[in-house]
């Protein structure tokens, strides 16, 4: 099993060889290419490994593949712990046929989404405090339905309110690797605008630990 391993047609030999040693990295790269290519949804490294022969290094192969596709019409992108292939955004103009009309989000929904993304995990009360108005249930429901936000852990404060966090589908939709890559997040944090400051003279215990939680979760 020394050199005949990567003969495309000799699958049995390959499978057999894999019992003893992993296929060459170039071959592994072909494998992750095929798997990512075939899937419309991001594939996690764990799932990729599970589908590849024993001993493969899916992560290394994925990183190799990502390099290979740099500057091409299709890109290899990382979304959270998962990987996917997406067309290059500059070629979007070729895709009128594939474009899906999405329901226009209301201003309230867009702002709520941004607040959850930047302040997650974030309670409804916090969203309302930032926006200065009450958030209708429909707005939250719409974002939940789009699977852009989901319930996070309950806040350990009186009433144990539910929190909201953004989902991998949100990251995928906006082409983000993680919530840390949100536009301007560093500047906002540096400016203290992601902190929750209680109104002076008001003992607002339930907002104090929010900053910690953001670090925890994202």
């Amino acid at each position, binding site marked *: 099993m020394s050199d005949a391993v990567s003969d495309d047609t000799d699958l049995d030999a390959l499978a057999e060889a894999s019992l003893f040693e992993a296929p060459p990295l170039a071959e592994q790269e072909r494998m992750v290419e095929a798997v990512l290519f075939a899937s419309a949804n991001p594939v996690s490294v764990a799932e990729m490994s599970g589908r590849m022969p024993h001993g493969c290094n899916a992560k290394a192969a994925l990183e190799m593949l990502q390099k290979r596709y740099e500057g091409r019409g299709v890109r290899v992108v990382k979304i959270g712990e998962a990987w996917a292939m997406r067309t290059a955004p500059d070629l979007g103009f070729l895709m009128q046929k594939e474009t899906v009309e999405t329901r226009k989000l209301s201003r309230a929904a*867009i702002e709520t989404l*941004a607040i959850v993304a930047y302040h997650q995990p974030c309670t409804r009360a916090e969203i309302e405090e930032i926006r200065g108005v009450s958030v209708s249930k429909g707005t939250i429901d719409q974002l939940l339905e789009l699977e852009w936000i989901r319930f996070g852990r309950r806040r350990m404060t009186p009433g144990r309110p539910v929190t909201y966090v953004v989902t991998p589908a949100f990251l995928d939709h906006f082409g983000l690797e993680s919530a840390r890559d949100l536009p301007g997040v560093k500047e906002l944090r540096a*400016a203290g605008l992601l902190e929750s400051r209680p109104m*002076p003279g008001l003992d607002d215990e339930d907002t104090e630990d929010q900053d910690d939680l953001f670090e925890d979760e994202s």
Partner: protein
Amino acid sequence: MADPDQFEINDLLSVEERLAAEALIVDVDGYEGPLDLLLQLSRTQKVDLMKISILHLAQQYLIFVEKATELRIELAADYLVMAAWLAFLKSRLLLPPDPTDEGPSGEELAAHLAFQLQRLEAMREAAAKLMARDQKGRDFFVRGIPEEVARLRNVTYSASLLDLMQGYARVRTKDEFRPFVMDREAILSMEQALERLRGLIPYAIEWADLASYLPEGWELDPKKRRSATAATFAASLELAKQGQIEIRQSGTFARIEIKARNGR
């Protein structure tokens, strides 16, 4: 809120500012709450939010609310709550600080309001940047012909000998609870009850509750009990008519008792 100060402040503002404030009144419905309105008003100051004059902003807001009231525009309660709070803040900012007061100073409150405005503004900008990003299905696209991953599910069913034995024991146990002479159905015919009761009469020497003559096991199932009770009662009437048994009942809904006539 008809505070004489108001008019004074009104005079302090330039014509331009008043026009701006009036223009805003027209689409009061367009605001998403008092904070949104304050943010809009702050734009007329044409300065960085960090340097905004909260006192000036409070005045603008109060004028807005007053105009709205004059024009008989119904303002939601939260606008009025904000107006009251801003009036309070304004007085704090204008009056020299009271050393005996333990509450937050006017400056602290003003700084917090400025922070809230900055934060709302920042979130709006962030939301706009987020929506301006390349989006899936609009700017970039997923694989058009995804290949389904065939899930070869090899389901193996397991069952141990013990499972098997327990399973069998279960059905046999169920069986044994059933009176073996009886039909499986939950119905006892009068003929069956009659036959059964006839066989038992020789032993009915003492008065005994009719219910104790129900077939064994039938009293456990409400359906069976109902049917058996009816059939046995009918059978007992028949036997009484034939003179084989006696029936007595001490009162309405009391127990019905029977005993053999010749057992006397």
